[in-house]
């Protein structure tokens, strides 16, 4: 009966705290929307056609066509052949890149294919010991110009130049192969034995990208898969603000004085708070997941994939909710004033979230920070959600994180209880 009364009291106080409710539910939703939309472009530059390239093909022969075709079929970039509605030229492309319209520009010079062919033919002739026309380097070397916006990441530039080399190499190999075939064919009397389409048969090595997931199906890391669980965890831990505030108010408004004179333990009162705020955390998570499932796709973002283990999600969510509540109780107990509690709570959660990989995934952090992130309970929770949402893990894969979070809850509550008792032994 007393616990029920404590729960009802806490719910009523919470429902009448509009600012607290906004912090609990609206702020994290806004954070998810904003951060996902911002980071979506960053993820797209890595995953999708994110790099804009202006392509000027002055060659109009097999080399230029092969490069253009290769780039257009690549997932790395989006290729444009016009600038401001007019066919791109070397000059307009350079200006457009300088103005930031495109990250990279590629200019294939006239006669590039002819130069490559000439070069290859010379090589074939030399190899087969035949006479050949002397070809000077100056006349047949090919200079493909790559225009680069200074803000472009070096990794993007490396990716594009690497792709270009691959396409050029492919064209060179094909020309070489064809030249050799023609020369060899001319030496074979029986024309019927000449291999047809032999070049295609040489493509024996293929590359397949497979994300190392624990389950069937492929989950591509994207802004939604990271941000929805990350900000949901942040929101859950941000209950430190209203919950520590509620504890502080009871101290400053004198209710705690009266409650200590009553035949009810402080732990019972605290249990009422813990139960309510654990439920609030779970409600927050439900809301955030529904944002990822329903609302973000409405903005053209990917749908949140939640893995295959509902039980796993429940276990890690409940453990996170308890850890967040325990932390809030500790802050509310340690703080001497409401302002102190607010500052301590907000700053510590910002720090722990940054450390825990909420703002920026831990895999892009330096090793030192990655080691430190192992001390953040937000990181334990995020790792649990990654296991389920990205790596396709099951219940067993989140048990470790869940146990760490529950131990954290027990420790924070134990310290709070000890502080409370010590303070009353004045």
């Amino acid at each position, binding site marked *: 009966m007393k616990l029920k009364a404590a729960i009802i009291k806490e719910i009523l106080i919470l429902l009448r705290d509009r600012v607290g409710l906004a912090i609990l539910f609206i702020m994290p939703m806004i954070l998810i929307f904003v951060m996902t939309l911002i980071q979506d472009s960053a993820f797209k530059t890595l995953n999708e056609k994110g790099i804009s390239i202006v392509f000027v093909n002055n060659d109009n022969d097999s080399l230029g066509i092969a490069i253009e075709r290769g780039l257009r079929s690549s997932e790395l970039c989006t290729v444009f052949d016009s600038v401001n509605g007019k066919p791109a030229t070397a000059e307009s492309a350079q200006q457009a890149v300088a103005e930031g319209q495109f990250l990279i520009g590629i200019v294939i010079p006239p006669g590039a294919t002819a130069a490559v062919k000439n070069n290859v033919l010379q090589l074939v002739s030399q190899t087969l010991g035949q006479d050949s026309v002397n070809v000077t380097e100056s006349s047949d070397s090919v200079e493909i110009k790559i225009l680069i916006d200074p803000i472009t990441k070096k990794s993007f530039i490396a990716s594009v130049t690497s792709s270009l080399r691959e396409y050029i190499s492919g064209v060179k190999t094909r020309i070489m192969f064809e030249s050799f075939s023609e020369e060899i064919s001319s030496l074979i009397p029986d024309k019927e034995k000449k291999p047809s389409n032999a070049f295609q048969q040489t493509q024996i090595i293929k590359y397949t990208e497979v994300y190392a997931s624990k389950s069937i199906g492929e989950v591509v890391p994207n802004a939604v898969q990271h941000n929805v669980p990350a900000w949901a965890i942040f929101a859950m831990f941000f209950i430190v603000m209203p919950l520590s505030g509620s504890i502080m108010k009871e101290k400053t*408004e004198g209710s705690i004085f009266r*409650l200590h004179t009553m*035949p009810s333990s402080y732990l019972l009162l605290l249990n009422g708070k813990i139960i309510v705020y654990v439920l609030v955390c779970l409600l927050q998570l439900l809301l955030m997941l529904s944002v990822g499932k329903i609302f973000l796709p409405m903005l053209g973002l990917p749908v949140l994939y939640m893995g295959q283990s509902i039980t796993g999600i429940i276990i890690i969510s409940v453990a996170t909710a308890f850890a967040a509540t325990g932390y809030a109780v500790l802050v509310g107990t340690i703080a001497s004033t409401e302002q102190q509690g607010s500052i301590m709570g907000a700053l510590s959660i910002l720090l722990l979230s940054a450390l825990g990989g909420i703002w920026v995934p831990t895999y892009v952090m330096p090793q030192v920070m990655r080691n430190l992130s192992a001390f953040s309970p937000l990181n334990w929770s995020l790792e649990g959600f990654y296991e389920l949402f990205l790596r396709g893990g099951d219940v067993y894969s989140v048990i470790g994180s869940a146990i760490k979070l529950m131990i954290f809850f027990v420790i924070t509550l134990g310290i709070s209880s000890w502080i409370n008792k010590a303070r009353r032994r004045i």
Partner: protein
Amino acid sequence: MLHLSDLKKMPENPIIETNHLVKSFKGSNEQVVKDISFSVYRNEIFGLLGPNGAGKTTTISILCGLFPPTSGSVIIDGMSLNGDLAGVKQIIGVVPQDIALYPTLTARENLNFYGKMYGVSGKELKDKIELWLGNFGLREAADRRVSTYSGGMKRRVNLIAAILHDPKILFLDEPTVGVDVQSRNVIIDHLKELNKKGTTIIYTSHHMEEAEHFCTNVAIIDNGKIIATGSPKELINSYPNCNNLESVFLHLTKRSLRD
């Protein structure tokens, strides 16, 4: 030091008995309460009177079990405060000096919560809430948030929250501070009613006139020591130059300012 009440033969054991209470807070060598001993008998209205910083609130806090004394003992209704604190908490009600209510809850919600914390529930609790809200003229405003109440209304709810479980002993730490005459009269009248029904009242106040008419016995405390005890009438009669409790109080505690 006068011990006029010692002269009065009491027919039964005291409901509160304090023996050589001493209290000094951690980190301080100064004793806030210095070897206090007094007894309160059933159905008494016992006033603990003294200037600011005299040790009244500390003494009441020890009696309520908020913190233990540094030394000395307290027996309440036959139970030792050290040994059976839970039992003591069942039979006492405390009206703190500050308004100990949840401002965003209504008076009814506050009383529901505190009543249940005392172990009262169901129809009994509902009836008691209605009765006391009616008695204190708060029925109309019962469903308004406490934050919208006047100081006097808050004081009245603050008092009701401590009596819903019909305590044997009621501790009141300056229950009428900062309220208008009307509210004060209502509070005092109902406290007298409670006392008539058997509740022993321990009360602190700065209002000497109020204490003179309200209390059956008083102890004047200053600098952590009891300097006089007895009924207001006995104390007034003991000092020929004093014609009321306030003049006795000023005579004993002097006129210097206190913090």
